[in-house]
């Protein structure tokens, strides 16, 4: 997942189980490992029976596609490769002079899921990428191993259990200056996730691109937001909504957040002003 994972918990046993959870998630869902279950599915030319974990993730992904009206769509694997994101990100590693051919637009809803057999039928032009939700999902699974109060932070996607009287203090990094904190939130028994396009950026044939794809255009999203931080009951939901709101922009993104009774967000517009919405109150 190309992220550092920090765990604040009691007991070595919990730490080992949490680490195992991340290791297995990486081996199963990584787009950059040719032997991962996901890439086996993406190469399959016939219906494939997958593991329980994989099938559950695909079912959840379909639910999020419907929840976001297709703004969140895991069928962007081929598009990401066409945009240049064909290997694990590192600054400068994706830069190149020449562009590649655009991918055929794909929809995750075209993937058939057979619940009885755990069988997945994938159209040949659909390449699945679960990067928009799998880190949050893994953090949720790992957090189940926390014995009591504790937190797991995986590259900015975090679950916080308990938190005492005041709750956990979450610092929201300034996307323009990572040494600064632009806002703070107090949370208890909540998850947070942040999406921005300031780090995972690269240049192809002179044009700037980033990793958050707008399925409607099959290009890197253009938006009036610099950064989105979502607070939700689960890190998976926060992860999905953070990317979706980023693509939608401030106005429609705020509407999406406020449709959920238990979700809040802090939006950083391109002019630098933070906007709170949903359950997050200033």
């Amino acid at each position, binding site marked *: 997942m190309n*992220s550092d994972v920090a765990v604040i918990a009691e007991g070595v046993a919990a730490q080992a189980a949490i680490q195992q959870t991340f290791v*297995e998630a990486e081996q199963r869902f990584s787009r950059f490992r040719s032997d991962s279950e996901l890439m086996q599915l993406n190469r399959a030319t016939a219906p494939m029976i997958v593991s329980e974990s994989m099938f559950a993730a695909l079912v959840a992904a379909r639910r999020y596609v419907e929840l976001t009206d297709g703004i969140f769509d895991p069928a962007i694997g081929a598009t990401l490769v066409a945009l240049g994101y064909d290997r694990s990100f590192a600054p400068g590693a994706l830069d190149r002079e020449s562009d590649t051919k655009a991918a055929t637009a794909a929809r995750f809803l075209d993937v058939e899921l057979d619940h009885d057999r755990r069988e997945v039928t994938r159209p040949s032009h659909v390449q699945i990428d679960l990067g928009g939700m799998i880190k949050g999902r893994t953090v*949720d699974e790992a957090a189940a191993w926390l014995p009591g*109060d504790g937190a797991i932070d995986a590259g900015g996607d975090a679950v916080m259990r308990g938190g005492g009287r005041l*709750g956990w203090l*979450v610092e929201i990094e300034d996307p323009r200056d990572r040494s600064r*904190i632009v806002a703070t939130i107090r949370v208890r028994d909540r998850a947070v996730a942040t999406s921005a396009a300031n780090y995972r950026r690269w240049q192809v044939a002179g044009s700037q691109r980033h990793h958050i794809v707008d399925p409607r255009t099959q290009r890197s999203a253009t938006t009036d937001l610099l950064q989105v931080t979502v607070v939700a009951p689960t890190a998976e939901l926060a992860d999905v909504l953070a990317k979706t709101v980023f693509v939608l922009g401030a106005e429609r993104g705020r509407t999406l957040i406020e449709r959920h009774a238990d979700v809040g967000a802090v939006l950083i517009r391109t002019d630098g002003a933070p906007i*709170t919405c949903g359950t997050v109150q200033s």
Partner: protein
Amino acid sequence: MKTPANVVGRRLRRYLGALLAAGFGVTWWSFVPPVAAAVIRPAPAIAMARELVELHWSQTAMEPAPPPPIKRPKPHVHRPKPDTTPVFVIADPLLVPPLVTPTLDPIVVPDPQPEVVLEPVGDDFPPIRTRSSR
């Protein structure tokens, strides 16, 4: 032909007489007290200026004077410390039970994992920093 002496004499007497009269007049006026000398001052200058001011005022009264520019202090640029930045409070915090029961699928982990040492949770909860994935 040479001017006769009687003619020259008569001219000289005339010239000298005129000079004496002029000199006498200058001497006379220098001794006259100045009170008798009237100095005419330009009278309407102030009155004219007052008229101009009033006229200017009546003309400009139709248009409101522009407000003076508001001087705003130069905004401070500061780096907010965590305890001075806005604090957003989550409404209705809820206890959320674990959503997923962890199950381990039969996947063999080929490489041994390094041992990780935990720090126990203390009474203070360290801040969590959220940002986009690196």
